[in-house]
């Protein structure tokens, strides 16, 4: 057993921390206030290779492992959860399906520019009537004259409408077999006629990330835009979500760490009753609980990432890590605001943003309840 990071993993984390502290953290508050997607910064991340981190060099990636990727998301998410989810959704949801299921031709055509960070890509699973029950997809894709004709609506889709978005991969019903809907993944480029994105949602948190509702009105794409085997769409997105949980877990750890950092600093500086509030045991215990939980959540996420790197089954570990760190991020954000008192309720203090950002960690990419259902199944219950 070895808990040491490799020099490479350490260097990736160092780079991301330095970049996050230099280029992201100073602007996070402003981007949040204006609900502004930081296009120039995301492009810079692309140039550094952060948007193609875990993909092989031959597809334009950096060839790093999943542990490095998780560390990178932690560091970026620690500075700004919005930028963190932009990166995580692009890599784990947008790009990964091309790598996992794409033909060589699709990898060259779609994955390479994504891994190089020239474009962002979205993954559209959720629909107004199909959330946790993602298999209940109503969107259809019919093969007509050698083209897929897509009709339907997707909601809450990350990265779908930025100025650097190349398109979206969606789940759609492509037919019926054995009385069940046949679901497949279909690639829809941004410039497809009949495909439109609504203006960004107004959100409580992740305000600097791009989330939109998507409409498909007889949107036609070539037959070769089927990703993976026809009818394997359900299995494929379950597979994608397994990996995505590692990155949302990492994002939660980054946020929880930021909460601890801010609270610990503030508690040493804030004087009441003639001493720093960090001297009060009630405050110390909150900080200790935060430190303990951040440490455990980090270990859980890194273990899931490590299992994936070893080619081992990581689904249970990833679901546990995602569930636990999401809850930890919420508890830490709550404690961080509590330790800041009234100041923590003010926009001027970053912890108020952390508090708004943490909640989605318990909802996105599978709610806490869905994680528990997944884990229950894996435990054979």
């Amino acid at each position: 057993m070895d808990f040491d990071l490799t020099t490479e993993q350490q260097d990736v984390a160092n780079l991301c921390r330095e970049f996050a502290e230099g280029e992201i953290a100073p602007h996070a508050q402003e981007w949040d206030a204006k609900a502004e997607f930081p296009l120039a910064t995301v492009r810079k991340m692309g140039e550094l290779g952060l948007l193609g981190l875990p993909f092989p060099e031959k597809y334009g990636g950096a060839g790093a492992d999943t542990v490095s990727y998780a560390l990178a998301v932690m560091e970026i998410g620690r500075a700004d959860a919005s930028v963190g989810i932009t990166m995580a959704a692009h890599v784990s949801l947008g790009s990964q399906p091309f790598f996992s299921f794409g033909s060589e031709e699709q990898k060259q055509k779609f994955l390479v520019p994504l891994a190089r960070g020239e474009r962002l890509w979205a993954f559209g699973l959720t629909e107004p009537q199909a959330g946790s029950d993602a298999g209940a997809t109503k969107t259809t894709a019919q093969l007509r004259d050698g083209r897929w004709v897509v009709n339907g609506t997707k909601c809450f889709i990350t990265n779908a409408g930025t100025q650097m978005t190349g398109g979206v991969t969606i789940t759609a019903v492509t037919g019926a077999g054995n009385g069940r809907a046949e679901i497949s993944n279909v690639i829809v480029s941004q410039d497809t006629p009949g495909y439109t994105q609504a203006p960004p949602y107004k959100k409580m948190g992740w305000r600097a990330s791009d989330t939109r509702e998507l409409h498909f009105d007889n949107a036609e794409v070539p037959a070769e835009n089927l990703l993976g085997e026809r009818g394997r769409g359900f299995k494929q997105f379950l597979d994608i979500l397994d990996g995505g949980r590692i990155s949302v877990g990492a994002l939660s750890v980054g946020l929880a760490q930021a909460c601890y950092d801010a609270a610990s600093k503030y508690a040493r500086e804030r004087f009441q009753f003639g001493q720093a509030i960090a001297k009060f045991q009630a405050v110390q215990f909150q900080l200790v609980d935060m430190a303990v939980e951040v440490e455990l959540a980090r270990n859980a996420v890194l273990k899931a990432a490590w299992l994936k790197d070893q080619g081992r089954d990581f689904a249970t570990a990833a679901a546990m890590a995602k569930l636990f760190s999401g809850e930890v991020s919420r508890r830490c954000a709550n404690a961080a605001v509590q330790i800041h008192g009234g100041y923590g309720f003010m926009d001027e203090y970053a912890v108020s943003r952390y508090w708004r950002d943490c909640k989605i960690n318990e909802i996105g990419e599978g709610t806490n309840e869905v994680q528990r259902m997944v884990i229950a199944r894996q435990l054979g219950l």
Partner: protein
Amino acid sequence: MKIVVTVKQVPDTNAEKALDPKTKRLNRSSIENVLNPFDEYAIEEGLRLRESVGGDTTVTILTMAPASGTEVVRKALGMGADSAALISDESVGGSDTMATSYLLAQALRHIGFDLVLSGTQSTDAINSVVPAAVAERLGIPCLTFAKKVTLSDGRIEIQRETESGFWRVAARLPAMVSVTKGINEPRYPTLKGIMGAKKKEIKTLSLAEIGAEPARIGDAGSKTQVDSFATVGARAKGTVITVSDPKEGARQVLDFLIAKKAI
């Protein structure tokens, strides 16, 4: 052309620092070390010169550090430097600028160079002496505080920053140049650079290899000794003048400055 950039590992500027009362040296073990921020400009300048000169120009990083110094060297490699050399030996600890410049000069002779670049100073010692001392030992021209560097036909020209403007200073290669903070904006390492760094050579140079005499390094080779040290006391609280009439306030400030003989 061979460009060598000398870099130093320094304690993180933000870290709490402590001096070891026994050795009277900075306790480096407990704090996080980083690449001296001033050296990042030298590395960046080296990489830019390599890009503009082209051909088979290489950038080599040279540092004197404990084995943990590879972390800062790897950062330079991740930024794009071609290779690195590390002088790492227990006995170099405690070297002052005399001994350090001797070691660096010996190593530079050993690895060869056309141009040596460095930062103007390190954030821990802030002596700004090493570049000049290294150049003196090597018998090459030393151009310091460069805020702009141009290279052509084996001739280097710099703009040397001064308080009121700049001097133009030129020399033939080989030469030593120290660059200022404003010269460029250092790039971040790239992911590809980091992943590629493990394929690049980090050579550890032994003292025998560079022909360094034990008597001229470490404590023995240092001309300066730290006798004692003391921490600077907290600054006294300033005087705050609170009045409702700005004119009266200005008068009081004026009186204060006159009393202090500041004006």
